[in-house]
């Protein structure tokens, strides 16, 4: 195919073949032998107009177009119309575009490259005998998944809409939430081969212009041949690419995207995936759920607090257990330390090996269960819970307290699903530092992580900002969430110029 050849370095003989010929047969021959050679999905539909008869061809890719549309609005009007004999070339094409073809999207092209671009993207291309121009008519039509509730971000209360794989549908889902002309959607093509459509969405006047420009520039700089998922883009444009903490958010939910861009963020939607990117992404966002904003603020604050505690538990429990048991038994209540000693009595491995081995087994079980079909996945978890846990304790391979530690670690990890994979790495780091130096090492590890987090940025905004904020207004949507009528201003870093979110009039009404 055309792109293949270019990618391989075989440039087409541009000078004489890049432009369409006036001869329809020459054009078709060239298309069949070069541009669309060995591609059986390309349909060449020949037909004639009324007197004075002119040969026409409709070229389109099978299953990428709406067949009825092509027949009703392109082929039929052309067949039943008679094109004036005196019209030729550009004027003829103009006449067809303006008076014959009944479609809202029609562009005139003059090169093979444009023809191919349109056809592979689902347009119908019309060539007419005697013209070195063609018409590309938008007729995209392919199978789409319907809008359903996303699997990864289900809610108890809240909209049940999720993005699909179709960019147009996704953009419309967000647009329907923000019915304002300030919402801007700008399209780009990324990927030399895939030509993936990317939509950049933001609200003008709230999102700082520098941020929008920065996102544009970063995406423009991407030079790769394929973008198959938004994760590709995320990895190309993110800050601190070597740190496992996410600096770009992703979501499957239009309401989330709408909420983020209304705070001054920029969203990037990618064709072919239901996952949209939002940036900048701060540490606190990993602990926020959209449901927080639908529930009573006290309930929401409690849930947020739970998430922070869970994050601490999932990262620190094995490390703390190891530090206390092997280095500082005096910090465990006496009866507990004696019962841990009793439980570990016949275990042949050191506590450190036990912690690492059980952590590994847990991660294997999780990884095994995630990508399996649901019924098999359940079998894995049963095997994991009953056979490995119960039998391992029974066989004195691990101690019972260790099973509790692994259980707490695992369950707490699922509470903070956005940081779950990051938490695994932190956990391993803390286990090693604690095993070597006890609590001293544990704190050393925590300090190292804090230094790293504090030095990170996401699109120019400090990663820990608002969590470390000392102002009341800055802390209103962090560990706690205050009611909406208290959140008068938008986050300071995100929307520095247009901060007022609650208008004075409504503010006084709420009081």
């Amino acid at each position, binding site marked *: 195919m055309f792109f293949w050849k270019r990618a391989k370095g075989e440039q087409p003989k541009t000078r004489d073949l890049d432009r369409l010929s006036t001869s329809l047969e020459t054009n078709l021959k060239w298309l069949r032998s070069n541009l669309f050679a060995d591609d059986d999905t390309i349909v060449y539909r020949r037909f004639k107009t009324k007197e004075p008869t002119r040969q026409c061809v409709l070229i389109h890719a099978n299953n990428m177009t709406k067949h009825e549309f092509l027949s009703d609005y392109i082929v039929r009007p052309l067949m039943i119309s008679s094109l004036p004999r005196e019209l030729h070339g550009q004027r003829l094409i103009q006449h067809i575009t303006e008076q014959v073809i009944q479609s809202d999207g029609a562009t005139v092209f003059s090169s093979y490259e444009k023809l191919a671009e349109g056809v592979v993207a689902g347009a119908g291309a019309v060539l007419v005998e005697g013209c070195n121009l063609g018409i590309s008519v938008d007729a995209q039509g392919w199978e789409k998944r319907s809008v359903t509730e996303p699997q990864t971000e289900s809610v108890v209360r809240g909209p049940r809409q999720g993005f699909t794989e179709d960019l147009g549908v996704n953009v419309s889902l967000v647009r329907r939430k923000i019915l304002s002309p300030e919402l801007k959607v700008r399209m780009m093509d990324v990927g030399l081969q895939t030509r993936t459509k990317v939509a950049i969405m933001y609200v003008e006047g709230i999102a700082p212009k520098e941020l929008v420009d920065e996102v544009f520039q970063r995406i423009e700089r991407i030079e790769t041949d394929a973008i198959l998922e938004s994760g590709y883009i995320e990895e190309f444009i993110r800050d601190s690419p*070597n740190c496992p903490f996410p600096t770009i958010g992703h979501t499957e939910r239009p309401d989330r995207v709408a909420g983020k861009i209304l705070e001054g963020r920029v969203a990037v939607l990618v064709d072919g995936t239901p996952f949209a990117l939002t940036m900048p992404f701060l540490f606190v966002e990993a602990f926020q759920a959209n449901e927080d904003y639908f529930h009573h603020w006290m309930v929401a604050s409690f849930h947020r607090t739970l998430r922070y505690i869970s994050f601490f538990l999932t990262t620190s429990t094995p490390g703390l257990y190891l530090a206390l*048991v*092997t*280095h500082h*038994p*005096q910090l465990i209540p*006496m009866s507990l*330390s*004696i*019962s*841990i*000693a*009793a*439980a*570990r*009595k*016949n*275990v042949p491995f*050191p*506590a*450190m090996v036990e912690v690492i081995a059980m952590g590994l087994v847990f991660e294997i079980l999780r990884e095994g269960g995630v990508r399996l079909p649901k019924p098999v996945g359940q079998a894995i978890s049963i095997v994991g819970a009953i056979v490995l846990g119960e039998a391992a*304790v029974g066989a*004195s391979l691990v*101690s*019972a307290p260790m099973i509790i530690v692994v259980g707490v670690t695992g369950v707490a990890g699922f509470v903070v699903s956005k940081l779950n994979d990051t938490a695994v790495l932190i956990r391993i780091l803390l286990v090693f*530092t604690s*095993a*070597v*130096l*006890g609590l*001293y*090492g544990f704190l*050393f590890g925590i300090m*190292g992580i804090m230094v790293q987090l504090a030095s990170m940025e996401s699109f120019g905004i400090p990663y820990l900002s608002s969590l470390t904020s000392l102002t009341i207004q800055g802390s209103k949507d962090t560990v706690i969430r205050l009611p909406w009528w208290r959140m008068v201003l938008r986050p300071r870093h995100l929307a520095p110029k247009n901060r007022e979110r609650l208008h004075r009039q409504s503010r006084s009404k709420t009081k």
Partner: protein
Amino acid sequence: MKKDLARVFFLCAVTLLTTGCWDYTEIELRDFVVGAGVDAVEPKVIVITEMAKSTGTGQEAEFRPVVLTTEARSLTSGAHNLANPSGMEIFWAHAQVFLVSEEVAQGGMLTILEPIIRARDLRSTMYLLVAKDCTVEEVFKSKPPLLTGVSQHLTSIIRLSAISADFVPQQLWQFTGDLAAPGISATLPAVELVHEGGNLMPVVRGAAVFKLDRMIGWLSKEETQILALLKGESEGGFFVMDTEIKGNTTAITYEFRGSQLKTKPIVDGERVEMKVSLSLQLGVAGTRGADVDFSDPAVVRGVEEQVARYFTRRIRDFLRLIQEDYNSDILGFGRLLWRREPATWRKIESDWDAVFRGLPVDVEVDCRIAFTGFRAQPIKMRN
């Protein structure tokens, strides 16, 4: 990237090189000492330890107290010798009680306490006790009826001190503090063995009186009640007093429901005097069914006056005991002078023992019946 690697390497190097506490020991390879004591110092130190050994694993695990005794030139070496019979690393940080025999207490506590305070893994919150009329080894080998282990038994009794005025608990840091502070002498609670169902069982009651670090005598359970009251550490407990109401004498049980203590030095030129005012709130716990009507204000007033007189007498007796017989300032009158009247204290400090012996103490007790239980009137039987 190179910079990051260098940073990680630097962190690891700092972590590993600048510390000297590599203390990784598997928990099951440790033996937990839960209580210890010393029976003799000369010619050799006899160290008794109670350890919690576990038998069985997992859910069937049980704790069995094991008492080990060693003899050595010093307390520290004796403690180290325990590793041999135990076969494990001895872990001291969970020790909760430390007992000394009467003989050791009379010989001076400092020889024993100095290495304990110096040791890094013993806690200063350990409770100190003196074994009365028995050896420490006998205490540790006695059989508490319900709990496993003597140390656990003693600790749970001591935790009850808030509702029992039979003893005044002392932790290691309090005792050593009293040794160093000016104008106060220390006391320690006493452990006795009593017969209980064919076994000997340890009980905590009474107190040992110290002068500096040497023990000089005992206080009985009743005297210790007064000690607790005058130290302001009594919050509960009961006492029975023969009370005269309308010509009849009845033994009524009273309950301590609170007390306020004010001790004040009065200096008038060369003359030093202490003023102790104690205000008691009592509850009536029982009258043995006698016909006493507490809804009658006159009865209540009469009872209050009698209790006040009763305590005034007991406090005077107690003061005579510690001033004249023991001549040991366990109530800290000297410390009070040092705090409130430093100029006077500096003058009499060197001669405090003699001053304390003849120190006039003005005792004033005020009593109030605050609560009579769920009844104020007597239960009347039909004729």
